[in-house]
């Protein structure tokens, strides 16, 4: 029987109490789900991930994590705070934000060290991740010396080493070359295959069928406008068009250019 991990009720959040970022969000995420928050630029996807990771708290409405209210008071309880950080991991959109230590190695071990994992266990987990992600060559390098793809891999390693139950990913495939992208998608698949929950914010329609089984669409009013399976939602061209999510494909046929919406047929 699945358990509800996150439950958001009439949740709203604004920047500086002036600029609405999320409006009246109602959302339920069950344990083991692989879900994508799909929306055009500026629809509040990243803010929603930050709310789910309890980095910001709603102005109105509520968010519950395994039935417990998430608010500033909850994080005054050191035991709960540590437990939450151990169970939920967020990979930020920009690796330059995520990688703040002098070396790649220090960045990878930062999380478990703060969470009190033993040094031997950290070394074991790190060795395993280095092999899986094939990052041994640059483990002692400085983050600013890495390419975008390498930084992304290290960012993911820095969260996976915590062994969270819920993985939050903010635009994980943005700016990656096809080979790195493939490797990353396989990694997310493997993580989900272990029964863990994956929540991805993206606007990349090409990647959605691989990133998620369920979709929630955020619209320009910064609220959730649709909730369903990947198959149902991607088949609804009107809904995608209304939300600036139709990918217009342009290519050449017999010497002339041809435009049509890109069709998605998830299996």
């Amino acid at each position, binding site marked *: 029987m699945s358990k509800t991990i996150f439950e958001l009720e009439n949740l709203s959040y604004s920047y500086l109490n002036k600029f609405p970022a999320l409006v009246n969000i109602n959302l339920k995420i069950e344990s083991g789900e692989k879900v994508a928050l799909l929306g055009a630029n500026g629809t509040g996807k990243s803010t929603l991930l930050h709310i789910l990771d309890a980095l910001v708290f709603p102005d109105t409405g509520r968010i519950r994590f395994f039935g417990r209210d998430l608010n500033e008071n909850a994080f005054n309880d050191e035991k709960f705070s540590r437990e939450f950080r151990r169970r939920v991991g967020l990979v930020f959109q920009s690796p330059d934000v995520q990688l703040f230590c002098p070396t790649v190695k220090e960045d990878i071990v930062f999380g478990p060290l703060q*969470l009190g994992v033993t040094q031997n266990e950290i070394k074991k987990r790190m060795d395993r991740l280095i092999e899986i992600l094939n990052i041994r060559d640059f483990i002692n390098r400085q983050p*600013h010396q890495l390419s975008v793809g390498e930084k992304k891999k290290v960012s993911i390693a820095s969260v996976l080493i915590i062994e969270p139950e819920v993985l939050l990913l903010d635009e994980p495939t943005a700016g990656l070359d096809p080979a790195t992208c493939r490797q990353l998608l396989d990694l997310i698949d493997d993580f989900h295959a272990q029964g863990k929950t994956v929540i991805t914010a993206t606007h990349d329609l090409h990647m959605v069928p691989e990133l998620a089984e369920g979709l929630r669409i955020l619209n320009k009013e910064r609220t959730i406008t649709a909730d369903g399976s990947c198959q149902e939602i991607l088949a609804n061209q009107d809904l995608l068009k209304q939300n600036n999510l139709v990918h217009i494909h342009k290519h050449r046929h017999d010497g002339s250019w041809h435009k049509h919406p890109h069709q998605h047929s998830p299996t």
Partner: protein
Amino acid sequence: MKFKSHNYIQRSLLGMVSFFKEAIFAEEFAFKPGLLQKIEPRIKAALILSLILASIFIKTTPLLLVLYLFCLLLAALSRISLIFFLKRTWVFMPIFALIIALPLFFTGRIQEGVLFVVRVLTSLSFAVLLGLTTPHTLLLKTMRSFGIPQMFVMTLGMCYRYIFLFAEIIENTYLAIKSRVGGAIHYKHGQHIATWKIASLWQKSLQLNKDIYDAMLSRGYTGEPKVLDE
């Protein structure tokens, strides 16, 4: 009405970017098989620190010059290009010594002025030598082993890390302006662009500051950084 073109903004920007690029290049010296590179970082740091202390307490210029020459010898034995080393140390001299010593030269206390300049040059050269022959990550670890609080070492490491990110932003901004302007711009317009860019970099650094703190919180940071024992 014609205006003379002023390229000081361009010179300052390029100078700053090339300084940081040189810093990346300079890391190569730390991995060369030279004399100082072979010494264990903690012993090396203690040795250099005692030489800096000696240069502070020596009261005669000739003896200080001997110490300075010893520093140059150590640099040569550590396979550091002397021209690079001299450029690297003398670039700081106007800031750290010459401006301060200038009144002494004008009031006839030339010997005192020379002693002060040579003393600063010698201690600065030893400090630069330590930085050039030790990878900065090992330098940070050495600081920790000397009992410097982890919070301070971590802040220093983060400054070093993000200074490169900002150098990259500055360089890209300069290239973006250059690609759109095509030639020299009026200096007043140049000042306007530079002022606006400084403000936007300030905003960017504030945002980055907040985001990085969030990234730290997200991975369990509670205000007391912990490090791996190695």
